[in-house]
């Protein structure tokens, strides 16, 4: 699959939008926990789904620095590059 930063951002937005619990529009600036009202379990499940699609693992300390969809996309892009 296409793994340039824009494609990864699109993947994140599509995956989040497909979740029936998410009713608000999602963009790169969306703050994952606050704007989407997801608890820590839902965020973990979402990240695991993306990890499977991109064949990467996001270390937990990197997750702690991530607030927005763009933050996550940048982190994933870097991990994919070093795969």
């Amino acid at each position, binding site marked *: 699959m296409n793994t340039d930063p824009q494609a990864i951002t699109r993947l994140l937005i599509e995956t989040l939008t497909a979740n029936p619990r998410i009713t608000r529009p999602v963009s790169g600036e969306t703050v994952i926990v606050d704007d989407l009202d997801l*608890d820590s379990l839902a965020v*973990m499940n979402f990240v695991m789904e993306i990890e499977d699609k991109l064949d*990467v693992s996001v270390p937990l*300390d990197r997750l702690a620095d991530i607030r927005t969809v763009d933050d996550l996309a940048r982190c994933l892009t870097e991990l994919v590059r070093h795969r």
Partner: protein
Amino acid sequence: MSILAKFSGLAEARESLLRAGRDPFHVVFEQVLSATEGIVDGRKVLLFGTNNYLGLSHDPDCLSAAAETARSQGTGTTGSRIANGTHALHHALEAELAAFFGRRSCMVFTTGYQANLGILSALGGKDDYLLIDADSHSSIYDGSRLSQAQVVRFRHNDPDDLYRRLRRTGDGPGSRLVVVEGIYSMLGDVAPLAEIVEVKRRTGALLLVDEAHSFGVLGEHGRGLAEAVGVEQEVDFIVGTFSKSLGSVGGYCVSDIPGFDILRVASRAYMFTASAPPAVIASTRAALARLAAAPELRRRLWANATRFYGALERAGFRLGPRISPIVAVRMPDVATAVGFWNALLRAGVYVNLTLPPATPDDQPLLRCSVIASHSEAQVDAAVACFLSVAAEWRGVA
């Protein structure tokens, strides 16, 4: 803005719980009469949420050992293990635990939480990887986070996902340590340890098993899941606790790894905290001796678990995947779980209420623990309470 403003969401959730009844996270036991009964609000309740699997908190040998030792050795060590806090008792317990598990070394910590904190934070260096099951206990998450290692979660009980994630760590320097639990504390399910060991062998990883809920519960001799599955020689570190099968408080790690003792001067949660009081060590030693000498405790535990689980399952409750001393009763939503929990306590049965996001799949749980000391009459009485409360709450059973 108050420093506590970050907890405003949590505070709202707590207010909502309190409107529905009493605070489930602050139940005050005016007395604990035995391993199976306590007094709440002046009334007797059956204790079905203690994880006191062998009932040894009230065993006569353990009580005598604690009382005599407090009188002769004092109420506390007032020191850490690296200062004045290592007594002959601590040394003896470590030797006895090592012998029980057939291992060369053992470190005792003041709590089980600290055992995970202390071992994982010390073992995980900056080039290392800790691969932890997604459903791990907080102490495993926290101990891992305190380490300098890269911490990666793998899908609960999924050896294939573990293998994929191990492969992704590449061939760089550093160790890979896989961390699983024997029995998981939410649903009472067990790790697929034989398959996890196979992954470990293929990848050269090390393996730590936290047998907190399985020590004294699984295995012919009570050594836990590793014994039950026949893979003890493949487990590099076993971590456990005294607060379940041994009825006291504390934790340990046993291992055969050469040089293990260096952790005594590298593990902060071992070094910079007071050691366990002499009476606690004494009762723990007595409890370990009872566990080793009395396999009938384990048999009674499983007979009770089978009786309780079977009765609730036949009544239509949705439970965890297999019979276990941890019997998790799934509730359809938070409001029902809270109402049911309150009604059970009013009817005379105490269980643990566990709410998302602490639960594995977002569903609230009433977590019950059955113990060896429960009589059949007590098990049947608890089941009867569940049935009578369920009659008022549709959609639960």
